[in-house]
């Protein structure tokens, strides 16, 4: 076979990419503002729902009112706030294909602000730790549990934002230089913090990105442990589910990959970013998506088989609540969307190696994930007396009221809104990362064909 000149893959230059991204950054489409308005309205509706719930107070009798807020909080923690982990993890693994979407993951750190705000009413909704099981044991209630949570969550949000600010500096410098007189250019000047691109600055950036990423990676499981321990396990009498925080982390990783895929698809379809989010990105993310879907089942099963086999009185009641009875339907739905569906779809090469396949599966995973979080937390918040030894009576499944629906929709819309706003301040494609990647790629003739050579910088 003769070398086919038309088969030679080609890559843009760093300059072309920078020009393209800055041009997109500069022009703000009308569609963008329309979507901002819609999201803002939905967010306000969420606030309305929250205020309606607020009127009923935080007492023992009204604890079940807050289940959906807590479920939303957990869902947002396990999707939007898990995305920086993807950026950190793939940077550590030196995966070249992550470069186009890494800024999406980092920009999502901004949603930590809303999530942190939502944490406050969630903590207020919890009963005192005295007389019930708690990971804080007999530590003074307020300091340990509310103070501890606020501190740990706050640190996570801070690290995420620090990571974002650090890795965005070179691109903010690009914005500063491209649009020096505009309002965004002036903000960019501050955020660029004097970035000139010296060797020292690049070294600090690379090391800092790795360090902040590692800290985020290490702290995130702690946050999930507190989420599970305080908002679920602490309210379910007799539960001893050590795997629950680990399950939550794995589910969060699945959610993060899924949300990245959906975001890329939307940006490709409606934002015209096809050249950045190609088959390579979707295919590469589809593989960990399949792996996390299998792990979703594995972690669920490890918990289930221990309780099922043990047949202890307390465990049987919990099985009835979470799996076999009250919340069986939500479990079945999320079982299908988070495990069966992804398994059956993604084991096929043509589906995995496509744009639509992983996106469809990812969308299902997000819906399933939300339902799963509702199962975990609404059930826990509907327990009348968390101080019992064995759960009795087993509460029935609780459907959302209008306020609950508004809170869920408002929370998700708020996070999307924040992401869209920050993406108009910090370029949503990382110019320097993509540029760095392009410098490490070349095309060469390899015997009877052309091949791509990818270098790995250290």
């Amino acid at each position, binding site marked *: 076979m003769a070398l086919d000149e038309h088969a030679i893959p080609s890559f843009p230059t760093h300059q072309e990419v920078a020009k393209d991204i800055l041009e997109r950054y500069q022009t703000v489409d009308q569609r963008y503002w329309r979507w901002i308005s819609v999201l803002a309205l939905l967010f306000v509706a969420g606030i309305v729902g929250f205020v309606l719930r607020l009127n009923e107070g935080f007492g023992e009798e009204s604890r079940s009112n807050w289940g959906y807020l807590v479920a939303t909080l957990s869902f947002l923690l396990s999707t939007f706030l898990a995305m920086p982990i993807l950026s950190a993890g793939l940077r550590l*693994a030196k995966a070249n294909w992550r470069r186009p979407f890494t800024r999406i993951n980092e920009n999502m750190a901004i949603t930590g602000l809303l999530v942190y705000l939502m944490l406050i009413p969630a903590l207020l909704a919890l009963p005192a730790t005295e007389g019930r*099981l708690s*990971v804080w*044991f007999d530590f003074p209630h307020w300091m340990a549990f509310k103070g501890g949570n606020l501190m740990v969550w706050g640190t996570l949000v801070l690290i995420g934002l620090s990571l974002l600010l650090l890795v965005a500096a070179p691109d903010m410098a690009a914005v500063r230089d491209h649009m020096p007189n505009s309002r965004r250019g002036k903000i960019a000047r501050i955020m660029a913090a004097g970035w000139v691109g010296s060797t020292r600055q690049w070294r600090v950036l690379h090391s800092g990105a790795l360090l902040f990423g590692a800290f985020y990676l*290490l702290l995130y*499981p702690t946050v999930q*442990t507190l989420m599970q*321990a305080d908002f679920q*396990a602490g309210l379910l009498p*007799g539960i*001893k*589910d*050590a*795997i*629950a*925080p*680990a399950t939550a982390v794995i589910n969060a990783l699945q959610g993060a990959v899924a949300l990245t895929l959906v975001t890329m698809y939307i940006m490709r379809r409606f934002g015209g970013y096809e050249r950045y989010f190609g088959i390579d990105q979707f295919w590469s993310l589809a*593989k960990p998506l399949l792996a996390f879907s*299998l792990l979703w089942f*594995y*972690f669920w099963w*490890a*918990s289930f*088989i*221990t*309780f099922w*086999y*043990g047949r*202890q009185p307390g465990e049987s009641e919990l099985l009835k609540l979470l799996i076999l009875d009250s919340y069986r339907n939500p479990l079945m739905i999320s079982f299908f969307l988070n495990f069966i569906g992804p398994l059956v779809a993604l084991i096929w090469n043509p589906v995995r190696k496509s744009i639509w396949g992983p996106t469809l599966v990812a969308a299902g995973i997000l819906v399933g994930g939300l339902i799963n979080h509702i199962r975990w937390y609404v059930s826990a918040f509907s327990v009348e007396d968390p101080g019992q030894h064995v759960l009795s009576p087993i509460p029935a499944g609780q459907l959302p009221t209008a306020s609950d629906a508004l809170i869920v929709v408002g929370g998700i819309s708020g996070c999307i809104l924040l992401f869209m706003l920050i993406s108009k301040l910090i370029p949503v494609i990382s110019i320097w990362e993509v540029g760095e990647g392009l*410098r*490490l*790629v*070349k095309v*060469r003739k*390899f015997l009877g064909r052309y*091949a*791509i*050579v*990818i*270098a*790995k*910088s250290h």
Partner: protein
Amino acid sequence: MYYRRTLTEAQINQQLLGTVLTTPLWWIIILSGLGIIVAGAVSAVGFMVNQGLGVTGLRQPVFWGFFITNFIFWVGISHAGVMISAILRLSQAEWRRPMVRAAETMTVFSLMASLVMPLIHAGRPWRIFYWVFPYDWARGIWPDVRSPLVWDPIAITTYLLSSTLFVYTALIPDLAIIRDRSTGWRKPVYGALALGWHGNPRQWKLQGLAGILLSALILPVFVSVHSIVSWDFGVSLVPSWHVTVFAPYFVIGAVHSGVSAVVTLMIIMRKLYKLENFIWEEHIDALARLLIVVASAWMFLFWLDLIFALWLKEEQEMTVWHLRMFEPPWSWLFFVFFMASFVIPVPLWLFRRVRRSFTWMLWTSLLVNVGMFLERFLIIVPALMRKGPMTFDYATYRPSPIEFTIIGGTIALVASFLLVFSKFFPLIPLWEEKEGQILIDSVRVGNVDVPGLVKE
């Protein structure tokens, strides 16, 4: 990373087939020594079968001791093979190449050693046949599929068969190389084993697909095996065993000890077989970084186990943990386990100089496995010592010299299996090394040639 002097195919053949085509004196000496240890262990087993299980330290209520600890330990070591081979193959990590076969082979032999342990532990191993098959139809009983003790052998046998097939499939091209280099009786034997391999594009394509497919299929098996072993404990109601986190905790612990064992193996192989051209600092550096991640995940799961063990404030649970952590000699063992598994090695691995030092990595990897053996021991024995609710049921456990001998024998057994394997088959895949060399390239950035790889 792996961009050193490139070797010709002939040079790779010559250097990696050294012990296959010739028999060095050190090989005979070491195998003899290992053989003596194994013989000692076999004698100990014979003595135990003759005298009864009373010669061990097993007493009511501690009926699981060193043998079961060793069983879990070897199943744990076996997880290295799939971790290195399958996961790194699927993630296209180039640095896996020199270690895949050694890791996979260690998996196979570790599983064999682990399967031997329950047989020895039974005391009268021949009675296991009654348990597996209906001895006569009048007995009216099959193995109870509801028991995790039935899930165990099925899972381990599945993993053993799968790993063996995995090793063999990837070995075929190398068998062809040995076939072409052999003379005399070896030629038809290797020829038969090579199945007539030519090395045409069809065969290579399918070899590549086999690697990917088998990796993808064996990964779920790898996760399930040690999970099922963990459910021997997890589904029981023994205090401190009935924990949901045991499955991933055991699996990640297995990966931790298994990958550490691969590090040990690679360093010893490099020294004995003079593989400096194939096993470099970069490889153990990469393994050490992997170990940091794995060890950190393991530590997270350990803390979950501890926190939620104390969560319900159940008396028996607290008693077991108190025994483990505060009552000597168990507390001393706990201290050694904790230090050896995590506190000493992981901070050391954070330093590049340590990661790239063969001496440091050898000792830290050995330390990890000492710690992980103790970890399994501390999970099993203290829980059984305080199993009953009444203090008159409390007992202690002291392993006997017989048990120590048998444990030592299993280590010697696996080592001798590996040694014998290396006599007939290369421990580093020749075709993988050659493929790695073909794919080496570089990208010029400014004045620097950045090492790179050709992507298919």
